[in-house]
């Protein structure tokens, strides 16, 4: 039963509806543009066809870029998840001023403009002469820097809910510190770790600014490939590539939502 108080909520419904439209409409436009039958990116599409989908699937630039982004995102996710989880746990357990300072530093890549991070890393690699500039590993480092804070944030959120006396109880029952961590702590914060890993993957897959500075013509992630393509030809193949990117992100979110209870992480409980 709804009571009359719900009437107060109508501005919220309107706000949510607007937000949803703003978020969803561009995605729909990309999808429809990718299915365009015409020669150029136009909206509304001049009829529907799989012409540009075919063009994407046979493209000598987009397919390798797509696979490269996938591999880069997977590697980024693996590294960021391990580093981020360890950092979050250490910061939380350490406490005090140092932990506060470190927490701030770790969140920095989230608030700094990506262009600044990309440029800074590029200048750093070139000027120090490290053999990482213009290599896959240099790009990977850049992606790990931008995604690790996401893992730290989600794991920290999970740790706030984690009751340390569970670990104490396990220790007292005969578990070593490692056993208590792997059997009690890790399973109970796995939701936060899973969510962080997913965010790391998605953010890395869509990362543009950092990649712009660190990628090379033979190491092109998908967003850079789309950008490059659009600069020279206004061809719907780029939109078709967008469809595949959206499909990947949606699929990975759905799969992880099955594995991880997001409601717990975002306060649904």
């Amino acid at each position, binding site marked *: 039963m709804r009571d009359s108080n719900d009437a107060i909520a109508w501005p919220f419904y309107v706000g949510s509806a607007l937000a949803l439209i703003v978020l969803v409409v561009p995605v729909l436009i990309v999808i429809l543009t990718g299915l365009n039958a015409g020669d150029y990116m136009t909206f509304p599409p001049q009829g529907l066809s799989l012409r540009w989908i075919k063009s994407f699937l046979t493209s000598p630039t987009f397919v390798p870029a797509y696979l490269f982004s996938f591999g880069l995102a997977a590697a980024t996710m693996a590294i960021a998840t391990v580093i981020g989880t360890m950092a979050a746990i250490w910061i939380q357990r350490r406490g005090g001023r140092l932990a506060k300072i470190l927490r701030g530093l770790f969140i920095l890549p989230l608030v700094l403009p990506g262009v600044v991070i990309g440029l800074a890393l590029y200048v750093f690699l070139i000027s120090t002469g490290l053999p990482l500039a213009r290599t896959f590993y240099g790009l990977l480092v850049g992606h790990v820097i931008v995604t690790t804070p996401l893992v730290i944030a989600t794991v920290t959120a999970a740790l706030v809910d984690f009751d340390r006396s569970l670990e*104490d109880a396990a*220790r007292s*029952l005969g*578990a070593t510190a490692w056993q208590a961590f792997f059997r009690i702590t890790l399973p109970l914060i796995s939701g936060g770790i899973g969510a962080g890993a997913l965010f790391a993957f998605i953010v890395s897959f869509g990362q543009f600014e950092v990649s712009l500075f660190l990628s090379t013509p033979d190491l092109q992630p998908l967003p850079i490939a789309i950008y490059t393509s659009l600069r020279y030809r206004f061809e719907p193949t780029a939109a078709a590539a967008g469809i595949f990117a959206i499909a990947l992100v949606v699929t990975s979110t759905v799969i992880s939502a099955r594995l991880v209870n997001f409601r717990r992480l975002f306060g649904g409980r």
Partner: protein
Amino acid sequence: MTEIRLDTLTKRYGTSTAVDGIDLTIGEGEFFSLLGPSGCGKSTTLRMIAGFVTPSAGRILLGDDDVTALPPEARDIGIVFQNYAIFPHMNVAANIAFGLKMRKVGKAEIDKRVREVLAQVGLEGYENRYSRELSGGEQQRVALARVLVTRPRILLLDEPLSALDKNMREEMKFWIKDLQKSLGITTVYVTHDQDEALTMSDRIGVMERSRLVQVGTPEEIYERPATLFVTGFIGHSNLIDVTARPETEGHCRVHFAGADFSARVRGALDKETPAQLAVRPENVIVDAETLPDGVVAFPAKVVSETYQGPIVRYRIDIQGTTITAERQNQAHRPRLAVGDAVLAGWDPARCETLLR
């Protein structure tokens, strides 16, 4: 059955001292309560015994074993936490089996012992439940079963009743006490609740500001509080300003409102000194006409009356000093009226003189 010995056990955090040189021996099979207000160091003491906090100085001995340097998992101690700390991702059976698995007990033996301990705590058929499906009392039983199944040397209980509602708390108080007695396991019970400590304990240690200020049976603690703090913390007491003069060892001559009588005192006094006489409200006897023999009696006046069901509480004025008296609400004893002139007094043998 293991004796616990704490030898000048101390914990300092920077410049502040959380636990200050505790010397204590808890006997085999004894139910010992550490009682005190929050922040008095009782929980830190318990956590040092459990091995979660490393002492700054002193030793902890279980029987003849010095466990001071051992990690928690090597101490063979069972601890029940305030919030029970049931592993939420494991069902009841897996929770209880955890300690046995860590000890590499075989599967068949684990199953058998889990069943046995569930029967012991009255939770047969609860094997597949999760903590979120259990009431507070049931979680408490699971937490106890989980430690008892490992047959620990000693049992530590950290405010285990504070998260329960009042009725359940009353029930669990006696249940835990009975279980402890039947197992004969040495138990340290941390609480800030004097009722729990008085009803459950063989002995109580009262802590105040990092120190153990008095150790004794519930009766000793209640009847003969050693300090003003203990007097105020355990139950209610009238604290009456009096003058005390030296008498024999353990007694002094107390002067109050024109009367002179002998009362107990701790420590020696060498000259006349101001002191406070602690008299429990239930030991203040009030009557309209006569008081029994041996009671120091004063003419007094009823100032106010508070009806509390089984007892009636009176505020009584004795020559400008107001004290509280409690009387059983019994049919054969007529209630007193406000403004009545009455006799009030106490048996000096049931008072304690506290020096400042």
